């Protein structure tokens, strides 16, 4: 066994008792399921029971164990030892990804055997595709949670020690379960291709499982102090853009890119440490013209913010017609990008204050006041000019100028705060 992390997880997960007890327990459940079937559709019953069990054992329980792969290290204070080890990021990633969930895969494998056998007996369509999709979604959930926990632990290790982000997994699980009950006769239209539903799900699950595993490896690299250049996050935004735009046959590729990049900018902005020290370090690297170090230390959100501006400019240049399926006209793309820049600066303004513990919540509160409350009050009071000033998206051509004013004010505030706290 060349991977000590995988081996350590096997030591912890397996005992002779567990090795024997699980097959017996699963056999009993399947027997009970078969015996309770009164209409003679034993294969159907076994297929449903095994699928449900797999979802429970691998998707839910496995995700809980993947969550513990990081949480336990931080809680038990063994993380420093792992960070100082000679194990590479990939070895550590797959050791945790498949080691912490090894027992779930052991039990899940038995469920897969029953799904395959009963599915073929019941002449279910696309049995192999379903099996693989179930497995890929399992990997996707486990890897995504390892990535999220590792990413969050950079600035909120207390929260991770107290349980991590495992609860997040429940959301995709309940979104994904209905996909397995949809009619298999359906086809999916994607970039004009009529793809078989099961095969499309399989390809999607494989793609996102690969993305999640890659993300876990990248975040692990940072945690183990292997320096990386910041291209993966915008690359993921591009993949998501291309994937999502396919469902509307590419009619709104640029708009999708704008929205996906914008969403990912906010996600990164509110989940990364944005301390004054971090930016002070970047400034020092810039002064020393250490551009490689500057890029290696750059947070994620500026990379997708740059992408937002690229998409906004492309929208502005390439189209004068209304964007399909969206109330956003091409002329609002630049103001939208400027709004994200302004919001980022507001967060930095609060993050750079001496008491920066509640920077994220203060930012959210001020954004709600700025974008919702003040425009609403101004609108009700009939002060349209004031309403346009706070929320300029229906102010026609003036919206860009107003948002430039917003963002330059926000940048000036950040600079003022930086100088004041130095």
């Amino acid at each position, binding site marked *: 066994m060349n991977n*000590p*992390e995988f*081996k*350590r997880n096997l*030591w*912890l997960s397996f005992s002779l008792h567990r090795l024997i007890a699980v097959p017996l327990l699963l056999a009993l459940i399947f027997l009970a399921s078969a015996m309770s079937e009164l209409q003679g559709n034993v294969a159907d019953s076994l297929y449903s029971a095994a699928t449900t069990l797999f979802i429970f054992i691998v998707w839910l329980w496995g995700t809980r164990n993947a969550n513990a792969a990081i949480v336990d290290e931080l809680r*038990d*204070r*063994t*993380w*420093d*030892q*792992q*960070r*100082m*080890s*000679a*194990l590479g990021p990939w070895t550590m990633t797959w050791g945790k990804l498949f080691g912490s969930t090894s027992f779930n895969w052991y039990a899940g494998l038995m469920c897969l055997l029953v799904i395959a056998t009963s599915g073929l007996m019941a002449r279910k369509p696309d049995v192999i595709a379903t099996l693989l999709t179930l497995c890929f979604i399992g990997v996707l959930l486990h890897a995504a949670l390892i990535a999220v926990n590792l990413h969050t632990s950079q600035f909120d290790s207390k929260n991770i020690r107290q349980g991590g982000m495992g609860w997040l997994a429940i959301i995709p699980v309940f979104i994904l379960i209905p996909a397995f009950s949809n009619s298999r006769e359906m086809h999916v239209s994607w970039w004009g291709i009529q793809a078989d539903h099961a095969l499309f799900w399989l390809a999607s699950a494989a793609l996102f499982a690969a993305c999640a595993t890659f993300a876990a490896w990248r975040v692990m690299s940072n945690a*183990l*102090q*292997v320096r990386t250049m910041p291209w993966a996050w915008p690359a993921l935004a591009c993949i998501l853009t291309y994937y999502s735009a396919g469902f509307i046959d590419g009619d709104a590729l640029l708009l999708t890119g704008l929205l996906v990049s914008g969403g990912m900018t906010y996600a990164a902005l509110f989940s990364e440490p944005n*301390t*004054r*020290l971090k930016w*002070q*370090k970047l400034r*020092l690297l810039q002064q020393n013209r250490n551009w490689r170090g500057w890029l290696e230390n750059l947070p994620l959100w500026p990379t997708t913010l740059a992408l937002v501006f690229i998409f906004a400019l492309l929208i502005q240049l390439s189209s004068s017609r209304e964007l399909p399926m969206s109330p956003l006209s091409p002329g609002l793309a630049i103001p939208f990008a400027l709004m994200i820049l302004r919001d980022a600066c507001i967060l930095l303004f609060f993050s750079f204050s*001496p008491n*920066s513990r509640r920077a994220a919540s203060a930012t959210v509160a001020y954004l709600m006041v700025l974008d919702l409350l003040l425009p609403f009050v101004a609108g009700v009071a009939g002060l349209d000019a004031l309403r346009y000033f706070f929320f300029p998206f229906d102010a026609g051509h003036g919206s860009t100028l107003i948002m430039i004013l917003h963002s330059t004010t926000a940048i000036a505030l950040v600079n003022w705060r930086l100088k004041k706290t130095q």
Partner: protein
Amino acid sequence: MIKIDGLTFDYPGHRALNEVTFAVDSGSVTALVGPNGAGKTTLMRCIAGLETPLVGSITVNGMDVIEQPRQAHRFMGYLSDFFGLYQDLTVAQCLEYAAATQGLPADEIPAAIELTASRLNLGGLLNQSAGSLSRGQRQRAAIGQAIIHRPKVLLLDEPASGLDPEARADLASLFRQLQADGMTLLVSSHILAELDEYSTHMLALSDGRILENRELKPSRLAETVRYLHLELASADDRLHEWLNQNPQVILRSATPEHAEFDFNGDVSAQARLIRELVEAGFLVCSLASHKENLQQSYLRSIATHRENLP
């Protein structure tokens, strides 16, 4: 072995290390001392490559820790003040895991476990789970994990915390043994008396700045100025004046029966002084070199630092 230059580390609203510069000799045992919040743990974590400073450089065994932390880890072992063990693994499994993760070849791991276990007196505990060990046994197992790959530099943050006197004595003996094997140790502790037993150097830190970095126990023969205590069997009023006339003596205090002074000379000069005292008719019953212990050194550093504050 360790070179630190201009190291500055900030926490939000607080500068933990302020342009710290020092060097640690190869094969030394350096006691890192200072009050709570002095920056000892931050300094250790920076050297271990677990924290990245704002500015400054750290070199361990010629390797730049900030630029190449993973390569530098190969030469280092680190025991943090709040270390962890895998509770459900046996001690043997903990050691095997540590050896394997540090890149020891598989065929060398059993021998490394055996050697480490015998060094740390863990032989009888190898099959016990880490969760069932006492505080002292856990400490030994954690040190075992840190040294199993035979690092050149061992960083220990409060290693004796919570240990009973016997376990502390064992630990001191182990550190002397590791030093004899050529390892360089940097040990932080609040228990200065314990550090005194094995430290060769003292690095005093306060408010993120170095107060003093010096050798504690120079070779006795090479020592030029030593602090001596003289005891007479019966009082002699001439003692104060006689000692004052000796150019090698800088008197600190004297009574007719007892004197304390700095003596500028080697052991041969000290032997001559005894002969001259006896020939002058003093009833000498003891002349002993009194070494300043670590606590006294540390307190003196702190006092000097406070005197120099504006």
